[in-house]
């Protein structure tokens, strides 16, 4: 049994300590917004926020998160910050197929939480572990910049 806080609720997982967080989130908790792209930390589609930091959930074993606080896109989507990011992404059509977007949005949150006024280079660095094969990134970078400007006070 592994206890942790998942999207603001205290939960207990029945998973073994060596199981992947990604698999447990999708299979045990039905949080399918956490996408499985590569299972080797290359794509960022499975990104979640662990104790305030972006991590690849495919590279985390369940035992590692005992006592930790976890936020997935499902928990984040109810926030004002999400609303600001969603609006900005939509404004510049930064989403095409959408597979990378849950991870991309959480990466965006971590960029802005650390630095509410990031430069373009800082934005690119912040999403450098999140692959997108549709957009060519420019629209996503622009969207994060728009959210930063429009979301003054949110971050």
């Amino acid at each position, binding site marked *: *049994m*592994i206890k942790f806080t998942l999207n603001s609720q205290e939960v207990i997982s029945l998973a*073994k*300590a*060596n199981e*992947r967080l990604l698999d447990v989130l999708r299979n045990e908790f039905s949080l399918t917004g956490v996408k499985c792209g590569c*299972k*080797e*930390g*290359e794509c*960022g589609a499975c*990104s979640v926020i*662990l104790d305030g*930091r*972006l*991590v*690849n959930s*495919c*590279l*985390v*074993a*369940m*035992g*590692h998160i*005992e*006592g930790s606080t976890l936020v997935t896109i499902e928990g984040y989507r109810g926030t004002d910050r999400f609303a600001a990011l969603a609006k900005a992404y939509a404004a510049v059509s930064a989403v095409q197929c959408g597979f990378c977007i849950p991870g991309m949005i959480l*990466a965006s949150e*971590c960029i802005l939480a650390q630095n509410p006024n990031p430069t373009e280079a800082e934005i690119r*660095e*912040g999403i*450098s*572990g*999140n692959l997108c094969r549709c957009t060519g990134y420019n629209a996503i970078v622009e969207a994060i910049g728009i959210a930063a400007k429009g979301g003054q006070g949110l971050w």
Partner: protein
Amino acid sequence: MVNGYQATSLKEALAILAKEAVTPYGGGTDLMIAADEKANYLFLTKVPEMKNIVEDKEYIRIGAACTFTDIIESALAPAILKEAGAQIAAPAIRNLGTVGGNICNGSPKADSALIFFATDAKLRLVSSKGERVIPIAEFYLGNRKTSLQANELLVEILMKRTGLSNYYYKKVGARAALAISRVSFAAVLNVEQGKIVACETAFGAVSDVIIRRADIDAMLVGKTIDEAKAVKEDYLAAFAQVIVPIRGRISAEYRKSVCMNLLCDFLESNGI
């Protein structure tokens, strides 16, 4: 917890390690790529003694369970280590991956291990029966082979407090983020009162173990910059002989040329 133990102190971690067959788990970024259903992990991220970056009279002591993000954000970590850490993978992996894991994984491509070689860092290995402090070069026995005993944990990496500020570091990868080093090179050069007092070079991703040849670097030590220039050709020739890249995804010829170019650039950037 089934198939794992979460240690909350070093004493507890060592006690578990002494009696159970467990795999020490730092950040998991290497272990989970080849996740093993039978693996029994000893989770170390909540062991305070392994999470600190502190200094004493002699060393900057870096806890083996510190992540690369911890290092980048530390006021104490030397700039050479921060620079290499900031080029590892991408933020989400730097938030998990630890220096201890990077070292104990045993790869000659480990970007932080390269820095510890170039700076002649020491490793503090502890078991429930005692501890030993060894130079990092003695830790590596071959590709993926280290001298870590089954009952031992790498607890700290000890770096020199001074003499690391004039450094050179280059990682050559195929892309800016999430790149595995094709070749990596780090070096430190110190000149005092007109004489080279330290020259330490290390080459990563070319051999089974990171190449650190203090015997060759010694050719430049004790010399003025002009005297070093005079032996430069011999120095380069000596390294050209010992850099024999093993087969890899990228051709040996290319990696050797890059190694020699980086070594030359390091010398030239120091006026040699």
